[in-house]
């Protein structure tokens, strides 16, 4: 007791791993329930059509089929549409225009893959085979598969509620001030960018296993979700499955999410409905081709931006116009992504006195678009970092130097777009990153490459992001339908071991380890004596799940504050045990002590006494040792960093090889460096994937051309380099631990770093992502 080394801040090996490396993880598809039935969805093969007759007779006769349910039956079920959780108002004050979005379509389909019926059968094979026998008449309509087509005056309208296919026309910042600054500028740099549409591709496909117990009038939903409580609330209050206590949502091991499993999807609703209707547990696991068609996609912006500078190369204004593709329907957070987590980050790391952004969103006949790792912030970071890079080159100054001249240097700093950065040292990570990549030696390496017929380039991406968004009241004003605090409950057992119940959800983020490290230190116990429980609404109190890099700064802060409460109560109990005044008791390194006595008590002794309740007046102090906290962060926190990429381009083929990659990030206080580095690595490869490889492409008929791993280019081990990751530290002031979110950073800084490097190598102004070999080869050819 009292002598354990501190765990928090150390690279403690993960508590999750033993089960996951031995094949003992429990993912949703691993669950097999008694009387298990399987669902297969009948999905529209057409991007836009009115639905005619749906003939289920042949399917119903297929052996093993339990039931076939159609959109028409769903429409009669009394269940409500899928909903978007964030209200955005257009600049004219109008609320966003929301089209109807039933979980099973009965009137009209608006994207390929949209479910129109479900077949439930005794086996997966039977369900799938019978689904092919459901005959649906489609009366085809014209198709719009990108925002520009959707904006055309004669474009077909997807939703009657949204003329011109426009959902909203939103703005932020001061347009007049920006116009004036642009007029008065010594130099203006303008760029047009496409932020390519991505498919999240968590390796575990989405999965659902829904059952209904009539004797208890209660649903149980196993689901691969990042946010089990939020999903339960939605299923209860929005969809209409009844009160929350009649629904249990369990998300045990979840195989990655990256945002895509934070939403309410049709399949969850339909499987619950079917389970009750048919009296069987109904399981559905997406095939990868279904994932491509139905997991909410990410990004898909077209942006024009202008940067104004004065004669001293100081940035005076930024003007941004973005057209964002929402897909066929508003997904759960679809309206938020291109607004309050995008345009609010357009100041980047720079002191820009005037910013204005206009965002117009439209519906198209494509898969709905929602939050994908970074969600809005990579889009903003890309705009800013491409723009400053081009500006520096136009002005003929070193891009690093141009950035330095314009960095924000004092904190807190209020930007013209809603955010107040609490802390940071942008110069520090830029300097460290350039040092780590040996920028000084770059020209020599460039020469060496040239001697071998290769083109080498260096690119910088200085990103900022807003993580752990809050406080809830402010988010409510901005349109959020929910609060974004986080909860923690700490249960100290009589023998001194501890269970921590968190409303966050771990699907790769290592909460079971990092959270335990903090709690172990707080109580002076071993990491092995702390169990982190999450992902089951029957076990854990209400919480908000994991996305937006919130689990450290928000979730762990809630745990830390609950620890405070535990210690406070334990100190009172210890005072009685030690027979000393309560205000003399201290707790440090697992020991309760007092200046009034030489006697000391261990954490476990006090825990036991809390439960025996023999030695303190229970009229004053309740027995037991269990505390709950709901932590609402007073503001966002602002992770920031510098990513530097060095590429070598083969001009003959256009192949880009990443020769070096350095990421230096300021995540404030770090709980487990090994885990945080891992988060950075993963984010970097998703960002590099966006920059070089990945793109969801539709044809003019709304067919997804890159709908499998044969055509959608997922980064493989041999596509990416080893990474050199470093940290700087400025504490966040918006949470008690001083932490900043680390989950998304890698995907934000890397795309501009890669593209800036390619442009540097080729001596060109711009190339759109993904910079595929053919695109690069064409750029080389036309630059020559």
């Amino acid at each position, binding site marked *: 007791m009292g002598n354990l080394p501190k765990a928090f801040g150390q690279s403690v090996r993960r508590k999750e791993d*033993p089960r996951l490396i031995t094949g*003992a993880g429990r993912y949703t598809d691993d669950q097999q329930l008694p009387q298990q039935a399987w669902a297969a969805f009948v999905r529209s093969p057409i991007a836009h059509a009115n639905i005619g007759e749906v003939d289920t007779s042949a399917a119903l006769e297929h052996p093993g089929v339990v039931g076939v349910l159609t959109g028409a039956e769903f429409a009669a079920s009394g269940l409500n549409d899928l909903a978007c959780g964030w209200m955005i108002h257009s600049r004219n004050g109008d609320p966003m225009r929301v089209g109807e979005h039933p979980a099973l379509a009965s009137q009209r389909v608006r994207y390929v893959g949209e479910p129109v019926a479900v077949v439930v059968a005794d086996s997966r094979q039977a369900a799938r085979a019978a689904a092919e026998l459901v005959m649906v008449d489609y009366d085809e309509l014209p198709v719009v598969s990108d925002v520009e087509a959707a904006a055309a005056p004669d474009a077909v309208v997807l939703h009657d509620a949204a003329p011109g296919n426009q959902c909203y026309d939103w703005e932020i910042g001061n347009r007049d001030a920006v116009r004036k600054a642009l007029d008065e500028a010594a130099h203006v740099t303008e760029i047009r960018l496409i932020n390519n549409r991505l498919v999240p591709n968590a390796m575990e496909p989405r999965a659902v296993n829904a059952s209904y117990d009539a004797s208890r009038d209660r649903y149980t939903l196993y689901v691969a979700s990042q946010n089990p409580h939020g999903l339960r609330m939605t299923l209860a209050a929005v969809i209409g499955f009844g009160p929350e206590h009649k629904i249990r949502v369990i998300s045990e091991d979840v195989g*990655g999410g990256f945002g895509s499993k934070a939403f309410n999807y049709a399949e969850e609703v339909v499987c619950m409905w079917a389970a009750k209707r048919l009296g069987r547990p109904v399981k559905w696991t997406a095939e990868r081709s279904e994932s491509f068609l139905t997991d909410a996609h990410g990004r898909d912006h077209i942006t024009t931006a202008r940067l104004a500078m004065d004669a001293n190369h100081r940035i005076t204004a930024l003007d941004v116009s973005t057209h964002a593709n929402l897909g066929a329907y508003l997904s759960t957070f679809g309206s938020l992504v291109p607004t309050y987590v995008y345009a609010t980050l357009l100041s980047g790391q720079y002191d820009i006195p005037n910013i204005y952004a206009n965002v117009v969103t439209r519906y198209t006949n494509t898969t709905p678009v929602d939050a994908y790792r970074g969600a809005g912030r990579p889009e903003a970071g890309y705009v800013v970092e491409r723009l400053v890079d081009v500006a520096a080159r136009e002005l003929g100054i070193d891009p690093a130097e141009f950035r330095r001249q314009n960095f924000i240097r004092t904190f807190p700093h209020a930007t013209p777009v809603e955010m107040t950065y609490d802390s940071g040292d942008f110069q520090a990570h830029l300097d460290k990153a350039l040092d780590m990549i040996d920028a000084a030696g770059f020209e020599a390496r460039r020469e060496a490459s040239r001697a071998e017929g290769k083109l080498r380039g260096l690119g910088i991406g200085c990103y900022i992001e807003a993580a752990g968004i809050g406080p809830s009241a402010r988010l409510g004003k901005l349109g959020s339908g929910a609060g974004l605090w986080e909860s923690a409950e700490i249960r100290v057992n009589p023998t001194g071991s501890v269970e921590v119940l968190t409303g966050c959800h771990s699907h790769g983020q290592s909460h079971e380890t990092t959270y335990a490290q903090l709690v172990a230190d707080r109580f002076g116990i071993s990491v092995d004596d702390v169990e982190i429980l999450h992902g089951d609404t029957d076990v854990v109190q209400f919480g908000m799940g994991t996305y937006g890099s919130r689990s450290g700064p928000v979730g762990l802060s809630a745990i830390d504050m609950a620890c405070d409460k535990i210690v406070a109560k334990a100190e009172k109990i210890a005072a009685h045990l030690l027979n000393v005044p309560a205000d003399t008791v201290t707790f440090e390194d697992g020991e309760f002590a007092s200046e009034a006595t030489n006697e000391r008590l261990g954490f476990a002794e006090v825990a036991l006494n809390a439960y025996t309740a023999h030695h303190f007046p229970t009229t004053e102090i309740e027995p037991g040792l269990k505390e709950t906290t709901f932590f609402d962060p007073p503001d966002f926190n602002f992770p920031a960093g510098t990513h530097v990429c060095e590429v070598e381009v083969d001009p003959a083929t256009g192949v880009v090889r990443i020769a070096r990659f350095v990421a230096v990030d300021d995540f404030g206080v770090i709980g487990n460096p090994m*885990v945080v580095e891992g988060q950075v690595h993963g984010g970097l*490869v*998703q960002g590099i994937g966006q920059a070089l490889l990945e793109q969801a492409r539709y044809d003019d008929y709304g067919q997804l051309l890159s709908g499998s791993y044969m055509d959608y280019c997922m980064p493989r081990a*041999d596509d990416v380099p080893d990474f050199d990751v470093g940290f700087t530290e400025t504490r966040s002031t918006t949470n008690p631990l001083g932490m900043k979110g680390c989950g998304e950073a890698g995907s934000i800084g890397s795309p501009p770093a890669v593209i800036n490097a390619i442009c540097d190598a080729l001596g060109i102004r711009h190339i759109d992502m993904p910079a595929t070999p053919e695109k690069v080869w064409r750029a080389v050819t036309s630059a020559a």
Partner: protein
Amino acid sequence: MEITVTVNGRSHRLDVSPNTLLVDILREQLRLTGTHVGCDTSQCGACTVHLNGDAVKSCTVLAGQADGASVVTIEGIGAVDDLHPMQAAFREHHALQCGFCTPGMIMAAIDLVEKSDHLDDAAVREGLEGNICRCTGYHNIVNAVLSVAEAKA
């Protein structure tokens, strides 16, 4: 049809339809759910097992092709208190996050190390091109595999 297949040292006589895949036999009939399915085009490698000593994608092996074969899955290579060196290395190097691709990645990596004379960073990366991971960025996976290869050398 009836097939006999030895899985992790135990022989099973199974009645299956010909269109059953090895991965379905493992997951659904034998309830060995450590082997995962991550795609439907034989690309992702999450379902990798050893079939007669070679790493294969069990989503692309038919029941009939597995008849008479010996199969080793992630459950058959080590236990929590007796980890295979590759499992231990994955933990030590933080080579997994969500864990979904991990069983297949470990099975592919074991094969790679066993069958290769010399492995460096590039060779490991090339050798794992049949396995997709979306979480780790591969950096730590490569380090884990190299550590096992170096210990073998």
